[in-house]
């Protein structure tokens, strides 16, 4: 196989009434790593699903080595050596890693029987051949995310795929896992395979890809050699008319006001895994302040989220809201108590996939939308339509949440949690994780305008750029304890924060007071 050409591809989704692809074209050559980049909803994934035989094209042509082909199923594409690793992995729990790899193409014993052992041996042989080192006997549900991704890649290699399409491969990986993924990809490229990665992270494109194609609103708007294009030019090309503003000026927050949220020597000793999760955290967050809390995953950020969400109880110490006890999540609708909460797990905790946008929108404020216990359908529709307009969400109130792109789901959650009247306290957990630049920009604007209106904002994020862009004060957690508290000024650098997050350097505390006091 030398080249794959997709030309003038159109794809219309009648259910949402949108053109996912409009005159999209793409040219892939053998032995290259080709990045397909674009904002959420730009049509990257749809175009690649067409190439992998998961969607049929409405019009346009697909040619492999100049011969026109048409795929009716992923199996057709697989026959020609094209396979896809999905954003959400398809490993089967209860099966071992090895069984997952050879699933459907198991070696047959006596031409008929399928055995666990022979499957795992075949998988082990494939791993040796391609230089992977996962334990083939390990149960799929015990694999780390990175390992599961490798299993997905091995599935394709085992089936002799020449063209591997990876959808947002780095979105769930840690920094180290990303590096090992990239070295795997480079090795596969050296063997002459073609790799396509779908992404919206410009930095990674520069790092790994040879060629990059930019998509916007369903069409391909440009194709570049990665070495000849700057990160800024790529961002600009992705966003079209939108302006990239970069870091923004930051106002000093208001001193001397009673803290909205107060952590009093908060500890959480036995989490789900029986270990000490949070150690003696004392902190205050005042009105009009954004307190950014950052940590490497596994260092207490998610426990802190669950505590703030009222889903866990501290084993000692206390949380105070406006001087009183912190409301338990299930005691009353939070919105009326003045707390907005954007969970980091937006698909499971933040929204309900099988329900409509309108139903998701009214879910927290049931007292308003069910006066006397009966649904006020008109009010629900109006309120959600207003939110859709205000937050420019690409959806109708009647769309199911699983029809929306990830960015639009997050906008829906932001609309529900941060709409007027402004909450006294906002708990924002990874608010822009996986969002494209325009949606991120939009979310930042909302968050900053809430601060102007006097909300106290707790921002839990593992994205240092986000913390440094938004926060007035930065708190670093390491192994569940506060490792540093500092004003977000010129002295703060990524390197400094990174060192603290890794537990290096002395514990730092804030020297001058801003916002609520630091106990």
């Amino acid at each position: 196989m030398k080249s794959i050409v997709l030309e003038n591809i159109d794809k219309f989704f009648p259910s949402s009434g949108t053109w996912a692809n409009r005159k999209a074209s793409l040219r892939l050559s053998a032995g290259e790593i080709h990045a397909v980049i674009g904002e959420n909803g730009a049509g990257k994934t749809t175009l690649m699903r067409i190439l992998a035989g998961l969607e049929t094209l409405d019009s346009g042509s697909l040619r492999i080595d100049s011969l026109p082909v048409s795929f009716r199923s992923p199996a057709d594409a697989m026959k020609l050596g094209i396979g896809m690793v999905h954003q959400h992995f398809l490993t089967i729990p209860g099966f071992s890693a090895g069984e997952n790899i050879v699933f459907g193409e198991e070696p047959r014993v006596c031409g008929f029987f399928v055995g666990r052992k022979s499957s795992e041996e075949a998988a082990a042989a494939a791993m040796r051949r391609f230089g992977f080192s996962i334990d083939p006997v390990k149960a799929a549900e015990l694999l780390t995310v990175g390992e599961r991704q490798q299993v997905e890649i091995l599935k394709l290699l085992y089936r002799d795929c020449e063209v591997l399409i990876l959808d947002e491969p780095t979105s769930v990986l840690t920094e180290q896992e990303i590096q090992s993924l990239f070295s795997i990809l480079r090795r596969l490229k050296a063997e002459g395979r073609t790799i396509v990665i779908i992404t919206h992270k410009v930095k990674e494109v520069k790092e790994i890809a040879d060629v990059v194609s930019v998509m916007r609103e369903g069409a391909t708007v440009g194709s570049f050699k990665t070495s000849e294009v700057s990160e800024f030019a790529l961002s600009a090309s992705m966003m079209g008319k939108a302006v990239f503003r970069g870091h923004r000026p930051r106002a000093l927050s208001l001193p001397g006001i009673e803290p909205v949220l107060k952590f009093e020597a908060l500890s959480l000793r036995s989490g789900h895994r029986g270990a000490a999760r949070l150690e003696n955290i004392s902190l205050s967050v005042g009105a009009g302040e954004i307190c950014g809390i950052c940590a490497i995953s596994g260092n207490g950020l998610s426990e802190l989220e669950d505590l703030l969400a009222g889903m866990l109880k501290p084993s000692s110490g206390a949380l105070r809201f406006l001087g009183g006890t912190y409301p338990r999540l299930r005691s009353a609708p939070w919105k009326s108590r003045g707390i907005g909460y954007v969970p980091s797990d937006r698909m499971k905790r933040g929204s309900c996939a099988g329900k409509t946008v309108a139903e998701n929108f009214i879910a927290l404020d049931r007292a308003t939308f069910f006066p006397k216990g009966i649904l006020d359908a008109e009010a629900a529709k109006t309120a959600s339509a207003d939110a859709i307009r205000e937050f420019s969400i690409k959806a109708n109130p009647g769309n199911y949440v699983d029809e929306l792109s990830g960015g639009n789901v997050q906008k829906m959650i932001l609309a529900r949690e941060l709409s007027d009247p402004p909450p006294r306290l906002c708990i924002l957990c990874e608010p822009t994780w996986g969002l494209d630049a325009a949606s991120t920009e939009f979310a930042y604007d909302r968050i900053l305008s809430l601060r102007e209106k006097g909300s106290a904002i707790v921002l839990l994020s593992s994205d240092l750029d986000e913390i440094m862009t938004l926060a007035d004060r930065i708190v670093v957690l390491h192994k569940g304890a506060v490792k540093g508290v500092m004003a977000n000024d010129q002295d703060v650098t990524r390197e400094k924060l990174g060192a603290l997050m890794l537990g290096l350097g002395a514990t730092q505390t804030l020297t001058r007071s801003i916002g609520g006091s630091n106990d």
Partner: protein
Amino acid sequence: MIEQERKRGKVLIATIAAAIASACLLILLFSKDFAGSLYLFFIAPLANSYYLGNLMASMVPLIVAGLGVAFAFESRNFNLGGEGQIYAGALAATLVALLLPESPALGVQLLSCAAAAAAGGLIGAFSGMLKRRLGVDELISSFLASSLIVLLVDYMVTGPLQDPASNFQTTRAIAPATAFAKIFLPSSLSIGIFVALIVSLAGKAVMDKTRFGFELKLCGANGEFAHYAGIDSGRYTLIPMALSGALHGLAGSLMIFGSYYRVMRGFSSGIGWSAIAVSLIAKNNPLALIPAAAFYSYLDSGAKSVMMGSDVSSEIVAIVQAVIFLLITASRLPFIKAFAPKKGGSE
């Protein structure tokens, strides 16, 4: 989503076609008079008012109990105790009616139905309570409780409440004046069908238009989201199970007032299970329960008509029903799988 709906629609049609085809195949295999048996199976149930009326009468408990199943399913609870709840409801209704022989019919009917719903509801609530307080799987506990209840009712029917004047294992019959009015003679179709239709309409309204229904469905669709939204998920284990049991009990009382007038040993003969099939066909939509129950009753009465009118033996009826149940269950497997216990799901 729309594509999914369309796909599910296709699956449903394929299931129905497969059910009919398998019935034909079984008749072809076991009947000497294929054409005659085919007529008995597909046409005879609709051919005269007696059969047609009885077919509609048999829809009554299926719709009401089906709604009970649907309420449990929608909140992600599994009530497998329908059989016992129907039986207990029927006994409670009969007892009340027997204790008040001289009272006005409407009063007796209302009181009996309330007693039946209470009996079924208590049994359902028992399983709901066990799940809420102790984390006992409601699927197992409702099934086991039902098995126990069936034996208890059997004991009552054949022991203390046995009709001394009858050779059958049955209680005394309720006063004829208190039974539901017949509307389609000579069949047993009574005003119970209107009760069933009203119950299904009410069920639709509760599910789609009320806060209770909304919260119940949120708990079923995504427990973590419901929790995050401040809904007490324990409440939506207890109440749907109780409501489910109550509707099953009510179905039992409707059978008594509409068709049976007395509790005979084993008279509910699988209605509780059939109601699960009906609810699965209807995808828990209260209004869709009506055509689903009609379809199920149609196949059921066709099977019985073949059994009585031709050389096909009674086992075939059971086999046809089993095949239909199997096909429906298989077609709804993704839904049923959603009930598989999840790690760290409950609090």
